[in-house]
């Protein structure tokens, strides 16, 4: 590393550190919704990526409306769009559970197939509604560009934004799950469905709202990712593999596990990527995952659930 000053190396180190944290927040935001649905309900939601795409398309649609009808509102619409994305994806999730998923709770493998079918239907609907081409919403100026604490350090503002959003959503989920009475009902249902029903918890309603919440969070993730990448009909399928990786590695029923797993995968990936090629870094990351899962099939954090 000759030819570089210490301040230069320090700047690169700081930016590389941020790249790792930024990847961590992206992975966590993607996985949270899935972890809730998979962890609490045992449903493998293959359409998770498509619910993210719903959020992204909602953002695109709102950016189009704002640009056309209220151009003055442009700098602020994005925050509003995230809320709308949550609501739209949540409502869709609510109906998906009502129409499709609830009939299949006794057959976990069939939910896999059914949600995969749902993902195909959703992909083709996006294609019919928004066209086959990839789209990007027009983002407010303040979201693009870089924050420069010193001459040499550029920290992407969209990365900081996603990081902040992930923190807010994660805290919100933890509050809901562990501090609210609704969360108590969810956890009770997860631990013992029959008993929960017997003490008067409407487990069907709990299931429906849990699924809707998971899908709504996917919608938030989709909206946030429009700052990073584009949106196409098949965008969702790009994210689904990484998402499952995080959830399975973390231990299916543990939200802490999901956070720990997102963090370790992101750091491993971004540190290795700095020293070798991107494809090789991915290979080594996946290889390490497979090895660890061979010795700890239940993932990083084993759940203590009575079956």
């Amino acid at each position, binding site marked *: 590393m000759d030819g*570089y000053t210490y301040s230069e190396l320090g700047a*690169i180190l700081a*930016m*590389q550190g*941020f*790249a*790792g944290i*930024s*990847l961590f927040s*992206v992975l966590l935001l993607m996985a949270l919704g899935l972890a809730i649905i998979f962890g609490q309900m045992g449903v493998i939601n293959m359409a998770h990526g498509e619910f993210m795409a719903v959020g992204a398309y909602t953002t695109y649609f709102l950016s189009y409306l704002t640009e056309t009808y209220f151009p003055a509102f442009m700098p602020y619409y994005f925050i509003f769009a995230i809320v709308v994305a949550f609501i739209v994806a949540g409502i869709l999730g609510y109906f998906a559970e009502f129409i499709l998923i609830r009939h299949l709770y006794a057959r976990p493998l069939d939910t896999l197939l059914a949600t995969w079918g749902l993902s195909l239907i959703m992909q*083709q609907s996006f*294609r019919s509604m928004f066209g*086959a*081409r*990839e*789209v*990007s919403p*027009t983002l407010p100026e303040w979201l*693009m*560009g*870089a924050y*420069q604490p010193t001459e040499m350090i*550029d920290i*992407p*503002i*969209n*990365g900081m934004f996603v990081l902040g959003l992930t923190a807010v959503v994660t805290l919100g989920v933890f509050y809901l799950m562990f501090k609210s009475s609704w969360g108590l009902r969810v956890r009770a249902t997860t631990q013992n469905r029959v008993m929960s029903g017997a003490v008067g918890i409407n487990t069907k309603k709990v299931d429906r709202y849990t699924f809707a919440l998971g899908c709504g969070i996917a919608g938030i993730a989709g909206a946030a*990712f429009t*700052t*990073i*990448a*584009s949106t*196409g*009909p*098949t*965008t969702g399928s*790009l994210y689904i593999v990484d998402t499952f990786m995080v959830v399975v590695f973390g231990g299916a029923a543990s939200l802490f596990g999901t956070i720990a797993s997102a963090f370790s995968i992101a750091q491993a*990936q*971004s540190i290795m*990527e*700095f020293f070798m*090629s*991107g*494809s090789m*870094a*991915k290979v080594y990351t996946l290889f390490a995952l497979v090895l660890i899962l061979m010795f700890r099939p239940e993932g990083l954090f084993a759940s203590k659930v009575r079956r």
Partner: protein
Amino acid sequence: MSDLESNRSLDQTATNTGNRHLIKRRSLLKTLCALPAGILLATHMSFAVADVNTTGLAVTDKDVTVGILHSLTGTMAISETGAQEAEKLAIKQINEMGGILGRQIKIIQEDGASDWPTFAEKSKKLLVQDKVAAVFGAWTSASRKAVLPVFEKENGLLYYPTFYEGLEQSKNVIYTGQEATQQILDGLNWVAKEKKAKTFYLIGSDYIWPRTSMKIARKHIENVLGGKVVGEEYKPLGNTQFGSVINKIRLKKPDVIYAAVVGGSNVAWFKQLKAAGINSKKQTLLTISVTEDEVLGIGGENLEGFYSIMKYFQSQDNPNNIAFVKAFKEMWGDDSVIGDVTQAAYLGPWLWKAAVEKAGSFDVDKVVAASEEGDIELTTAPEGYVKLHPNHHLWSKARVGKWNKDGQATVVYTSDLLEPDPFPAGYQ
């Protein structure tokens, strides 16, 4: 019965001629025989089916059937939509001019569905069942490689529109896009001269086209330009995280970033570059994978000031292109944009028309022989002027475009007419 026989004899010629020299000599002989016949027919101005179609293709007194084979669904539909729209526009215009040899062109369209085995299956259907006289289609190299054996076995004729990695030349394919050297070399020369570039950072998606292109670029940079490649990086298809790579680039401080990232990754790459504070004021970036189509997704504001090397840009202001853009928008809507491959796809039906009229026949062997004489030219091409080389590729010019905020490029450099060289010596 006659159909069966002719098919069988065709199969034999196809299998017998593994040797390239033999093909050349034979097609030369055929051309020599075909030429006077063509002239004779032309003077009579009557083209009986029996004369123009001896191999049982779907040709009647009134019409001739061709196939269009692109992905209308799946991940490649994004890119292939424009290509099939351009082909339909060209066919419509040819029909309005009276068709080919007095026959209107009918289209059978099939969907390759972004799936390579489906491409092979559909091309077989078009050739064997529909007996189409020519097929305009395929987009990715993977889909071309999948249909190639089918076209060679059934002796079909494919017009392939995409700029690609080269290293291929089939009797049954006419390549209307640039092969790798035509696209890459002049662009690198330009950036070395204009921007005094000495160090290059290569980055691409991880599959055959970027890797082959980068191999050629690296040889040219090191052996011809005397420059240095300070980094070479490939990211998996669909990857959307470029934070670490961008930091590596920052550390190496290259004069030029040379990029061949494709698909959804492309958008993520440029958005994150901008977010990381790397813009055209600080950094020269030259890409071989961004056309007007991609800009729609990336957003002009994220690309402003960066450069693309292509052979065509929608903003070219020659009269051919102005008419073409107008006709395209009339047919497909004012919002449509036209990228390099869309324009190359538009050339396909016109090149086929020229070759068929020259051969005076729809027979694939005769059309190929006419194409291989190397004198078929299109003076009406939107990109300006192209000529078909005996090696089945086009003579064309390379252009460097500088992207503007509105998603259009300003052409800042145009090369001489470049000879296609699909098997470049010293670059493999």
